[in-house]
């Protein structure tokens, strides 16, 4: 896989770097008892939370939206937990370790999703939605076609993201903890099912929150301990990195990464628009009481995530300065043991000894479990609330039935994740992260954006455009350089770009606008007329879902 592809996927917060671990099996490690002990502490705390949450989970609102009782601050931390995976820590450090500045680009660009989400979506989404993003478009559009499209796309998104996380996780965990790959998969699967099936959104939220605090503290400790080592001189740290790295001064400068402007633009657009419309993040807006708290959650999340990305500016270069020339972390050929993905992990040992190494390994495990839990509840809500309650039962399902279907879906998704994780073991799954991002940037973003900002959108237009975005995305990814070229061995792709998002986003918007303009059915006229009602509600919160009362 090219460096460019690896770079890219990475910072989506997701699994690329983890995935690339799978390509270079690290040497067998001994059982890491400190790490396992600390992870067991995390497991016990999180199961305690789950037990507590299970007793407070009665209604659908409790299960899918934590009863709307999470505060903006707590939700901001939980969103940080959803967004920042251990790939973000290990992957960015690995990219900077290998390429310097070009790796840094992937700390900066994905972050653009946050302000966009705030300015364009957060208030309106909170005022229009209930449990899932399909609720937002059901305010004025025809329920069955819209929910079918959105919930199926959500499942494609969740499963694509899940495969990347599970495969990356299995490899990472077996490396760090010295346990078997399959055992790691099963442990993750069991924990997820326990959290989500019993504790629902309440447990998932608090597990995310604990994990976010652990990850931020761990990364802060690495950063400040490294700075301490250089007498708090950022310049000294960078100067030492420059003198250690074979590329010298070039690690502070842009290299040959973004030479193709179309790829760069397409990739940037995919990360920004796709990142602003991810179903497992957006559904977190419904766990807070009102638009005001939703805005605060975005602000807190943006602050924590921005802080984390700034830490990577130090951590990546500190790894060059402190790991690259330290014989403890090098193999017989003078290369870093376990590959560049281990740079942050080795750095944690260099600054904090074996105890801190154990802590960071445990945090990495906890991080994966929390991200997978967030995806699982997003998938479960698409099945129980959208497909079962609204489409299959036409909104006539009881609370009890919806919660039951949610629990069953969580168990099935957890088991399915383990099966996929084992099935895709040792495969190059890195390209898969472009699937969920292409779906969210070309299906969710255009539908959500036009439904809130353009009176003219109709059900027919939205469904046609969403289907074009989804279908074209899958086809272009398949015909692109990664699948058609590398995996199927044709050398190069029929479609020349790795990231089709630029084309699929344009096609999706274009189709929605043209089909809606041509749609003159009575239903379309009614939907346009209902825009005013929807607009008032989205702006003022009149008629918005209130938090559940107990």
């Amino acid at each position: 896989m090219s460096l460019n592809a690896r770079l890219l996927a990475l910072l989506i917060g997701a699994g690329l770097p983890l995935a690339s671990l799978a390509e270079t099996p690290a040497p067998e490690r001994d059982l890491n008892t400190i790490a396992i002990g600390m992870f067991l502490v995390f497991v016990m705390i999180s199961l305690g939370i789950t037990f507590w949450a299970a007793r407070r989970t009665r209604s659908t609102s409790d299960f899918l939206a934590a009863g709307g009782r999470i505060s903006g601050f707590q939700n901001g931390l939980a969103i940080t937990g959803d967004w920042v995976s251990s790939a973000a820590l290990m992957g960015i450090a690995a990219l900077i370790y290998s390429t310097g500045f070009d790796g840094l680009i992937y700390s900066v660009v994905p972050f653009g999703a946050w302000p966009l989400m705030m300015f364009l979506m957060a208030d309106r989404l909170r005022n229009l939605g209930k449990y899932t993003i399909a609720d937002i478009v059901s305010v004025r559009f025809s329920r069955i076609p819209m929910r079918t499209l959105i919930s199926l796309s959500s499942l494609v998104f969740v499963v694509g993201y899940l495969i990347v996380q599970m495969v990356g996780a299995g490899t990472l965990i077996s490396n760090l903890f010295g346990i078997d790959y399959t055992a790691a998969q099963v442990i993750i699967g069991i924990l997820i099912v326990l959290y989500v099936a019993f504790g629902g959104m309440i447990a998932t939220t608090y597990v995310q929150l604990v994990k976010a605090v652990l990850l931020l503290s761990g990364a802060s400790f690495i950063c400040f301990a490294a700075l301490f080592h250089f007498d708090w001189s950022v310049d000294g740290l960078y100067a030492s990195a420059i003198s250690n790295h074979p590329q010298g001064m070039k690690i502070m400068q842009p290299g040959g990464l973004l030479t193709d402007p179309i790829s760069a633009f397409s990739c940037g657009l995919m990360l920004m628009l796709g990142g602003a419309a991810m179903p497992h993040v957006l559904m977190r807006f419904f766990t807070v009481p009102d638009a005001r708290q939703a805005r605060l959650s975005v602000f807190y999340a943006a602050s924590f995530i921005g802080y984390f990305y700034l830490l990577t500016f130090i951590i990546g270069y500190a790894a060059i300065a402190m790991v690259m020339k330290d014989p403890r972390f090098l193999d017989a050929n003078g290369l870093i043991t376990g590959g560049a993905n281990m740079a942050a992990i080795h750095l944690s040992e260099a600054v904090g000894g074996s105890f801190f190494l154990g802590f960071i390994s445990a945090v990495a495990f906890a991080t994966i479990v929390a991200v997978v839990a967030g995806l699982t509840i997003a998938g479960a809500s698409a099945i129980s609330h959208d497909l079962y309650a609204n489409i299959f039962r036409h909104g006539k399902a009881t609370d009890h039935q919806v919660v039951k279907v949610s629990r069953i879906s969580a168990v099935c998704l957890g088991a399915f994740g383990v099966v996929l994780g084992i099935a895709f073991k040792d495969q190059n799954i890195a390209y898969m992260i472009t699937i969920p991002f292409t779906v969210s940037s070309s299906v969710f973003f255009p539908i959500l954006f036009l439904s809130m900002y353009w009176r003219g959108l109709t059900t027919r237009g939205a469904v046609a455009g969403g289907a074009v975005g989804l279908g074209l995305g899958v086809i272009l990814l398949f015909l692109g350089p990664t699948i058609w070229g590398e995996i199927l061995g044709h050398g190069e792709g029929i479609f020349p770009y790795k990231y089709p998002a630029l084309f699929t986003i344009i096609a999706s918007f274009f189709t929605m606008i043209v089909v809606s303009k041509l749609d003159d059915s009575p239903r379309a006229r009614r939907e346009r007329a209902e825009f005013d009602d929807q607009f008032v509600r989205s702006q003022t919160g009149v008629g918005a879902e209130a938090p559940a009362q107990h």
Partner: protein
Amino acid sequence: MDALHARISANPAFHALQAKRSRLAWTLCAGVLAAYYGFILMIAYAADTFRQPVHEGAVITLGVAWGAVVIVLSVGLTGIYVWRANREFDRLNARILEEAHRESHR
């Protein structure tokens, strides 16, 4: 249209609030897009500028510094929006809702 919604919609204060909110949102949006695409375009077309140190003798380059500034700027602009929305806009909104409810009880 729902009667309450119709009364809100008929209130000029609602349209004033809405216009104010969207002006702020789109202005901030333009700022963010300029910072990000400026960063990407500089790397693609003006990498030499990004290779310069921030000042004579420094090891940190303009590229690294701009990267950090883009992140801080994004958080800052997000903060400006939240600050104005949670103070000013929410207060205006509450007044509009109150007027609409009062009329409906008349």
